[in-house]
């Protein structure tokens, strides 16, 4: 099981191969989205929408063997790719590690430059939602 930072470093080196080319980077992000585990249609409810995203992003989390597992989807391909990065980093981590994670890969790969401010704000909303899920699951774990 790789740590959050190992996974971030992996992503950073993959993106480095794209040499800052915006179009190639976006294509790559969409490709990653294609590989995301399909989300159950029944989970695509308004309750599971991440607030603050212009695109629709559904996100759910569950606890299994003290680890958090996420499921996600989006109605736009780029956003789906973006959320798949987060699922890849956080799937199977402990609530505590998720809550305390420092996502340095975002600035390292220069995300805002190729997805723009609006989608960057949406991405921040996804991160926040993931941490909220982790916190809620941790609380549940402790009772």
């Amino acid at each position: 099981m790789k740590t959050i930072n190992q996974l971030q470093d992996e992503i950073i080196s993959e993106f480095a191969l794209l040499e800052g080319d915006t179009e190639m980077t976006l294509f790559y992000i969409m490709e990653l989205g294609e590989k995301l585990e399909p989300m159950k249609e029944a989970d695509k409810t308004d309750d599971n929408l991440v607030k603050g995203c212009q695109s629709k992003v559904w996100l759910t989390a569950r606890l299994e063997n003290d680890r958090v597992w996420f499921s996600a989807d989006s109605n736009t391909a780029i956003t789906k790719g973006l959320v798949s990065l987060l699922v890849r980093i956080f799937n199977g981590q402990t609530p505590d590690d998720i809550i305390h994670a420092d996502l340095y890969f975002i600035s390292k790969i220069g995300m805002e430059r190729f997805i723009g401010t609006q989608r960057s704000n949406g991405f921040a909303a996804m991160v926040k939602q993931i941490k909220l899920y982790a916190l809620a699951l941790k609380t549940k774990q402790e009772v």
Partner: protein
Amino acid sequence: MNPASVTALNVDEIRKQFPVLNRKVNGKPLIYFDNAATSQKPISVIEALAEYYRNYNANIHRGIHTLAEEATKAYEHTREQARAFINAASPREIIFVRGVTEGINLVAASYGRAFLRNNDEVIISGLEHHSNIVPWQLICGQTGAKLKVIPVSESGEIDLEAFTRLLSSRTRIVAVNHASNSLGTINPIKEIIRLAHGAGAVVLIDGAQAGAHLPIDVQELDCDFYCLSSHKMYGPTGTGILYGKSHLLEKMPPYQGGGEMIKEVTFEKTTWNDLPYKFEAGTPNIADVIAFGKAMEFIRQTGRDVIEQHEQALLRYATEKVGSLPGVRLIGTAPQKVSVLSFVVDGIHPFDVGQLLDARGIAVRTGHHCTQPLMDRYGIEGTVRASFAVYNTFAEVDALTEGVRRVINFMR
């Protein structure tokens, strides 16, 4: 056939007048196809702004010093230019406002509040921008009047027969756009105005998408109100005009109170200034109004017919090229359109198309374009919209086509 040969315009010379077109975006030369949202500005407009602040910045009217006189003269010169631009009968009928949105709000609040009664009716069309929907909803809510909507056909045209059926002795106001921002449809406003007048209603035309593209003659149209936004006509943001027939403006109460719009003020009673000042409370947007004059001059000098011919050729070319890509569906196929190409691509969200085009330096707009009811009509969330201006080229349309083709190929 080289499509460029069919237009009389020297695009290279035009492009030299727009400094922003030298920019690069994501390492690629900017291709600006978001003209329906706002157009770029020629150097004459940019310099007029700087020139005003550098040389003769002063508050206008009631000043006896030289700068105030120069600024007043330049400001009132734009009013005369605007009068000529739309062939109004008098400059008294030209009111400077922030843009189309404020123009419509002014008429809704002033004319609407004064003349709408419970169960009167206001008719708009299914093609309207939120700016020509919400002000009417607000005033209907306050007066008890009802809002009626003319349906739109699959091709994106107003259903005139349905309009005729909606008209009645209860109709007070009809408000429609000259051309649709989402689809480009040019509406048969002359006919709409004639029919509405037959029912005794007044007509407001939202000219936001006409100002840069179509000849406008308010006397020939016989419309009662006509709104324009400078920023969509190569001019600065923050200004525009409301045209109103003087006999209507005369009987309307002021919209806002303050300086400039009064004749005499006592604590007991205030009398209103004459037209058009009655509707221009406070210090106006002097610099932008003056530069707006330069924008209208740019359009006049370039020639409205020449501009129209060039843009129509671009539209035909883009319709053919982009429209024949696999999976592309054009939204809005009326025979008469301004230079707006709206489309969706099967299985690809407009946001993704827009973002991928931006990566190639191509600026388009994606989403509902402030016309959510119209998107609902088509059962879509939004479109990709490319809108063309005088400085766009056929090579740029080729780049757009290639960009969309790449997105489609990648997603399949």
